[in-house]
C-alpha cells in the first residue's frame, strides 16, 4: 500500500528540508526559508517550466508557508495548477490552495469555475479533490455557484463522493444556514445510506441542525436509537471497529445527538434509556476509546430526562474515572461531575477526597477543571473556602486569559454568596490587587455602589461599619506598590466619601494620602481625577461641619500643577477644588452633602434659576435664544438622528457631504441620548467615561431622556466643554440645585445608583441566609460529610485553606491514609497503566488491546519483555549519550552498521518513558525482529529509508536519530 519511501522530490528540495532540519535556531531557519523564497520567486516566473517542476515549486511553497512565512507571491500559481487536466497536478493545486487561502481570499473567484467543472468530472477522484476544496474555500457568496452540483453528488455511486458532498453541505449550513434550508430533507435521507461512512458523516450536519431547532427532529429519535443499537451490537462492517469497539466514533456522534433530542423531553428520553444503559454495560473501561464512549454516555445521561438507573451507572463510571491513576481520566471524572451536578447535587460529595486531590494536583489542566466544578457547586456555605482557593490560584498564575476568567468568577461568586460585608470587601480587595487591570471596570463601580448603599439591609450601623472597614483596609493597602488603576479609583472614591465619616482619621491625613496617590500615579489622569475630586469632598465635608481646614503644602502644589494640566478635565477639577475651599459652610453643605452619593438628584428641567441671568443679559442687549428647530427650519434633529441610524445600519459608503455638526448649536430640542453624549467628549478624551455614567444615571433616576437636553443647553450657553457647573462664584449661590447636580455628577461617576441592579442584588440576597445546620459546616466545601468521607480532618482541612503548612501536611497524611483505605476497599481497580494517556509511551504499551496492530502483526511489546529488558536498560542508560555522540561524529557509517545501537539511541532521547515501556534495549529489539517478520520491521524500514536518504545525499539521521523512530512503536 502506498508508495514507500518515494521521495519524488529533487535533490534541491531535499537539501532544503535537510538544512531546515539541521538549523540550530529559529533565526537560522528563517534565513534559509527567506533564501528559498527568493529562489522560488525567481524560478516560478520563468517561462515554460515543466509541470513536474512546477508541482515541486508548489509543494515548496506549501513548505515555506507551513514554516510560518509568506508565500503569497505564489498563490496564483497554485490556483493555476488546479486548472490542470492531470489529477496529479490538480490534486497538488487543490491541496495548496486549501492550505493557502481562507474563504475570503480574492483569488477564490478564480477557482470557482474550475471547481464547478471538476464536480462534474467522470473521475470520482477529481470530484473528491474538488469537494475537499469546496469545504475549505466556498464562502457565502459562492455557495450558489456550486450548490446544485453538490446536491446532485449526494446520489453519486461512490460513497466517498456522497460523504464529501454531505460534509460540503454541512459546511454550507455553517457558513450560511439559509442557503441550504430547502435541502434539509437530504440530510435525513442520507441517514439511511447503505454506507456507514456516509451515515456517520451525515450525523455532523444533523447535530448542527438539531442544535438550532430540536423540535423539528424529534421524529428521528426512534431511528437514531435503532441505529445506535445496531452499532453497539456490532452490526456494522468490521472495518469500522476501532480497538475492538464497534464504530465508537459513530456511537459518540449518535450519543451527542440523542443528548440534544432528549434534553427536557421525558418521552423522547424514555426511548433512549435502554440503549444508553446497554452501552454503559458494554462499555470497555480499559481502553481509551471505551472511556471516550462512556464519557459521552455520561454527557447524554446528564442532558436527557433523569433516569435513576442510568444516573447510577454514570456515577459508577465517574468513580472509576476519579480513582484512576491517569490524569486524563481524572479530568474526565471531574468534568463529568460538573455535568451531573445539576441533576444530582449530592454526587460530588461522594468524591470529596478525589476532588480535593485534583485541586491540589500539580497539573494546571486538572486544577482548572476542578475549579470549574467548584464554581458550579458553590453555595453560601462553601463560598469562602472556594473563593479563597480561587484567589490563591489566581495570584499564582501568569496566564492573563485564565486570570481574567477566574477573577470574574470570584467576583461573581462573592457578589452572589458573600456571607458578610467584611469578607466581601476583603475578597474584592484581593481580586483588585492581583487582577485589577484584568477585571471589567463595571466590577469596580459595583463595589463602590455596594459600599455606598450598604448591603441592602436597613441597618445603618452595619453600613457604617462596612464603610469604616473599607476605609481602614484601603488606607492599609495604599502602602503597597503597583496597585491597578481601577482599584485606585475605588480607593480614592471611598476615601473621599467616607474617609472622614467616622472621625477616626483626620481630614488632613486623608488628604495627604490622596495627594500621595495623585503624585505616585502622575501619568494616570483618571486616578488623578478621582483623587482630586475625593479631596474636594473631604474639604467640603470639613467646611460643612464648621471645622477649619488646613491646606497642605503638597495639596496646594498638586492643585497648582493640575490647574495647568493638559487635561481639561483635571484643570476643571482643580479649579473646582480651589473654589470649594473658599465657600462657606452652608454652600458646602449644599454642594456636597455628606453621604449622599446614593440620593437621587432632582433636576429642574426648566432651569428657572437662570431666568434672572438670562433676563439681565437680554437687558444688556443680548440676542434672545432661538431654538434649533426654528433656526434650521426643515432639517430637524430627529431626522438627523434617523439618518445617522440608517447609516449605521447600512454600513455602505456615503457619497454626499456630511451634515454640519448639529450639536455645536445650543439647543433644547428632543435629541436622542446617544446624540447628546457624542457632543460632550469631543474636547477631552478623559471625562467621557466619567461624565457619561452620571448622566445616564440621572436619566435613569428621573426616567426622562429630555432632562439631558436641557443640560446640554446649559453647557452651550456657558460655553463650557463639559456638563459641569462652572465654578463661577456668582452662579453657585444662585443655583444650589444645579450646582449640586453638577458636582455630584462627578462624584457619582462610579457607583451610580442604578435601580435595576439594586433589584437583582436584593433578589439574590435571601440566598445568603444560611440554614443553621449548614452553618455548622459552612467552612466545608461540600456542606456535609458523606458516606465515603472517613476522616473528619479532611473537612477541617478544607475549612482552613489558608492555614499554615504544618496543618496542611498533617491533613495530607490523613488524606493519604484514607485513600489507602479506599484502595483496600476496592481491590479490583483496573490497571492504571492501560488507561494513562498522559504518558506518551503507554500507547506503545497498549497494543495488546489494539486489534489493528495485531492484525498488522505489529510489534507487541508485552509487559513481560519490557520487564525483562528493564534492568539491562537501566544499566545501559548512561552509555547512550556516549553512543549518541559517537553517532554524531562517525555519522554516516555508525547508524546503519550498528542498528541496535540506533534504536537504543532513539529510546534514550525519548524522555518520560516509564520503566515498563523501556522496551528497546538491545535484546528487545532483536526479539522484536524475530517476532515480527511480516510487518516490514521498523528497523529494516528505517535502514531502507536511511539508505534512500543517503542515496539522495541527505543525511539527517546524524542530527536527530529520533527521526527514524517508529511513531507507533
Amino acid at each position: 500500500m502506498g508508495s514507500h519511501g518515494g521521495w519524488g522530490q529533487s535533490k534541491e528540495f531535499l537539501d532544503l528540508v535537510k538544512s531546515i532540519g539541521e538549523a540550530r535556531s529559529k533565526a537560522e531557519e528563517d534565513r534559509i526559508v527567506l533564501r528559498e523564497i527568493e529562489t522560488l520567486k525567481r524560478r516560478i516566473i520563468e517561462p515554460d517550466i515543466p509541470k513536474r517542476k512546477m508541482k515541486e515549486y508548489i509543494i515548496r511553497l506549501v513548505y515555506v508557508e507551513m514554516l510560518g512565512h509568506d508565500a503569497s507571491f505564489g498563490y496564483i500559481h497554485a490556483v493555476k495548477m488546479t486548472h490542470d487536466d492531470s489529477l496529479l497536478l490538480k490534486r497538488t493545486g487543490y491541496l495548496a490552495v486549501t492550505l493557502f487561502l481562507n474563504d475570503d481570499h480574492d483569488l477564490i473567484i478564480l477557482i470557482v469555475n474550475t471547481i464547478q467543472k471538476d464536480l462534474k468530472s467522470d473521475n470520482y477522484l477529481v470530484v473528491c479533490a474538488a469537494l475537499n476544496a469546496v469545504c475549505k474555500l466556498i464562502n457565502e457568496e459562492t455557495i450558489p455557484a456550486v450548490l446544485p452540483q453538490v446536491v446532485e453528488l449526494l446520489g453519486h455511486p461512490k460513497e466517498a463522493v456522497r460523504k464529501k458532498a454531505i460534509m460540503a453541505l454541512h459546511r454550507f449550513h455553517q457558513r450560511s444556514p439559509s442557503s441550504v434550508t430547502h435541502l434539509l430533507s437530504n440530510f435525513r435521507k442520507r441517514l439511511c445510506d447503505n454506507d456507514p461512512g456516509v451515515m456517520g458523516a451525515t450525523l455532523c450536519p444533523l447535530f448542527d441542525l438539531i442544535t438550532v431547532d430540536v423540535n423539528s427532529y424529534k421524529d428521528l429519535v426512534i431511528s437514531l436509537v435503532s441505529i445506535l443499537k445496531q452499532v453497539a451490537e456490532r452490526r456494522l462492517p468490521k472495518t469500522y471497529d476501532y480497538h475492538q469497539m464497534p464504530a465508537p466514533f459513530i456511537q459518540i456522534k449518535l450519543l451527542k445527538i440523542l443528548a440534544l433530542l432528549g434534553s427536557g423531553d421525558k418521552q423522547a428520553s424514555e426511548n433512549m434509556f435502554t440503549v444508553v444503559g446497554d452501552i454503559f454495560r458494554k462499555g470497555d473501561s480499559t481502553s481509551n476509546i471505551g472511556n471516550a464512549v462512556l464519557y459521552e454516555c455520561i454527557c447524554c445521561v446528564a442532558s436527557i430526562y433523569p433516569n435513576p438507573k442510568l444516573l447510577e451507572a454514570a456515577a459508577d463510571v465517574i468513580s472509576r474515572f476519579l480513582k484512576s491513576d491517569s490524569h486524563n481520566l481524572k479530568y474526565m471524572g471531574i468534568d463529568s461531575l460538573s455535568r451531573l451536578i445539576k441533576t444530582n447535587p449530592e454526587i460530588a460529595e461522594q468524591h470529596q477526597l478525589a476532588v480535593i486531590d485534583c485541586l491540589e494536583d500539580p497539573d494546571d489542566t486538572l486544577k482548572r477543571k476542578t475549579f470549574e466544578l467548584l464554581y458550579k457547586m458553590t453555595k453560601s456555605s462553601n463560598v469562602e473556602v472556594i473563593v479563597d482557593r480561587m484567589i490563591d490560584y489566581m495570584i499564582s498564575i501568569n496566564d492573563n486569559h485564565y486570570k481574567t476568567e477566574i477573577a470574574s468568577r470570584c467576583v461573581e461568586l462573592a457578589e452572589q454568596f458573600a456571607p458578610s460585608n467584611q469578607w466581601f470587601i476583603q475578597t474584592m480587595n484581593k481580586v483588585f490587587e492581583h487582577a485589577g487591570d484584568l477585571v471589567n471596570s463595571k466590577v469596580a463601580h459595583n463595589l463602590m455602589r455596594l459600599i455606598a448603599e450598604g448591603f441592602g439591609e436597613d441597618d445603618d450601623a452595619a453600613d457604617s461599619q462596612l464603610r469604616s472597614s473599607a476605609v481602614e483596609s484601603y488606607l492599609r493597602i495604599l502602602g503597597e506598590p503597583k496597585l491597578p488603576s481601577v482599584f485606585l479609583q475605588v480607593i480614592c472614591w471611598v476615601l473621599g466619601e467616607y474617609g472622614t465619616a467616622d472621625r477616626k482619621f483626620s481630614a488632613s491625613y486623608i488628604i495627604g494620602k490622596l495627594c500621595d496617590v495623585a503624585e505616585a500615579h502622575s501619568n494616570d489622569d483618571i486616578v488623578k481625577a478621582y483623587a482630586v475630586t475625593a479631596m474636594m469632598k473631604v474639604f467640603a465635608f470639613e467646611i460643612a461641619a464648621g471645622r477649619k481646614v488646613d491646606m497642605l503644602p503638597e495639596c496646594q502644589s498638586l492643585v497648582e500643577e493640575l490647574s495647568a494640566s493638559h487635561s481639561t478635565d483635571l484643570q476643571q477639577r482643580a479649579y473646582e477644588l480651589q473654589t470649594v475651599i473658599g465657600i462657606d459652610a452652608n454652600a458646602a453643605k449644599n454642594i456636597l452633602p455628606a453621604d449622599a452619593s446614593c440620593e437621587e438628584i432632582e433636576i429642574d428641567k426648566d432651569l428657572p434659576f437662570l431666568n434672572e441671568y438670562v433676563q439681565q443679559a437680554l437687558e444688556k442687549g443680548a440676542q434672545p435664544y432661538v431654538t434649533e428647530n426654528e433656526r434650521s427650519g426643515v432639517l430637524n434633529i430627529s431626522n438627523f438622528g434617523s439618518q445617522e441610524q440608517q447609516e449605521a445600519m447600512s454600513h455602505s459608503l456615503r457619497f454626499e457631504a456630511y451634515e454640519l455638526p448639529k450639536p455645536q448649536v445650543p439647543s433644547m430640542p428632543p435629541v436622542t441620548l446617544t446624540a447628546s453624549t457624542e457632543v460632550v467628549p469631543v474636547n477631552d478624551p478623559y471625562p467621557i467615561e466619567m461624565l457619561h455614567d452620571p448622566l445616564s444615571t440621572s436619566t435613569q433616576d428621573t426616567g426622562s431622556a429630555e432632562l439631558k437636553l436641557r443640560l446640554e443647553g446649559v453647557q452651550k450657553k456657558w460655553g463650557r466643554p463639559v456638563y459641569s457647573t462652572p465654578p463661577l462664584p456668582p452662579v453657585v449661590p444662585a443655583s444650589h440645585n444645579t450646582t449640586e447636580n453638577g458636582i455630584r455628577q462627578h462624584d457619582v461617576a462610579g457607583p451610580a445608583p442604578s435601580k435595576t441592579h439594586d433589584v437583582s442584588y436584593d433578589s439574590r440576597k435571601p440566598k445568603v441566609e444560611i440554614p443553621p445546620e449548614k452553618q455548622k459546616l459552612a467552612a466545608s466545601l461540600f456542606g456535609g460529610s458523606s458516606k465515603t468521607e472517613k476522616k473528619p480532618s479532611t473537612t477541617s482541612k478544607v475549612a482552613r485553606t489558608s492555614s499554615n503548612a504544618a496543618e496542611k501536611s498533617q491533613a495530607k497524611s490523613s488524606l493519604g491514609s484514607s485513600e489507602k483505605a479506599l484502595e483496600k476497599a476496592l481491590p479490583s481497580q483496573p490497571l492504571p497503566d492501560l488507561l494513562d494517556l498522559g504518558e506518551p509511551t503507554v500507547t506503545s504499551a497498549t497494543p495488546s488491546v489494539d486489534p489493528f496492530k495485531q492484525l498488522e502483526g505489529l510489534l507487541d511489546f508485552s509487559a513481560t519483555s519490557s520487564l525483562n529488558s528493564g534492568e539491562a536498560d537501566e544499566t545501559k542508560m548512561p552509555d547512550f549519550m556516549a553512543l549518541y555522540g559517537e553517532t554524531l561524529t562517525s555519522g554516516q557509517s555508525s547508524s546503519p552498521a550498528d542498528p541496535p545501537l540506533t534504536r537504543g539511541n532513539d529510546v534514550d532521547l525519548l524522555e518520560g518513558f516509564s520503566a515498563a515501556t523501556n522496551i528497546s534495549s538491545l535484546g528487545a529489539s532483536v526479539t522484536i525482529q524475530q517476532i515480527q517478520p511480516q510487518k516490514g520491521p521498523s528497523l529494516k524500514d528505517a535502514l531502507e529509508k536511511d539508505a534512500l536518504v543517503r542515496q539522495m545525499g541527505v543525511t539527517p539521521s546524524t542530527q536527530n536519530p529520533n527521526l527514524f523512530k517508529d511513531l507507533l512503536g
Partner: protein
Amino acid sequence: MTMIHFVLLISRQGKVRLTKWYSPYSQKERSKVIRELSGIVLNRGPRLCNFVEWRGYKVVYKRYASLYFCMCIDQEDNVLEILEIIHHYVEILDRYFGSVCELDLIFNFHKAYFILDELLLAGELQESSKRTVARIVAAQDALVETAKEQASSISNIIAQATK
C-alpha cells in the same frame, strides 16, 4: 459536533512538521498560535493530562516518539475522542508508510496532508474506517503512478525522437 479548529504536528525541538487550519487564521495569528502552543505543550511534564486549556479552547496533544500531534477543539468537546482521532491518524499513517517515522512526514508532508484530507474534512471526522481511508488514498496514488508512467513514457519517446 466536535469541530477541530486546527491540527499541528510539532517535533520535540519545536519544529513544525504539519499545520492544517480549519478555522480562519491569518498568517500572523498562525505563527503566534504555533509559538504559544509549542511553548506550552513541549514544556509539559510526562504523566499529566493530554489536554491544555488555552485561550478559551482546549488543545489535545499526544506524543509519538519525538513528534507531538496537537488538535485544538472547543471547551465542551470530548477530549478522549480527539485523542483517539489523533491515534487513528497515526495508525493510518503507519499503515501507509509502513512503520511511519518522523522522517517520512518531513519529506512527505504533502502525503500526510492528502491522508489527513481523507480523514478530516471541514474540521470534522469524515471517515472512521481505516480501510476506507487507505483505499481512497491508494486509489489516488495508483492514478498518480499511471500518470507518472505515462509522463515518463512520453518523455522517453520525445527523448528518443529528438536524439
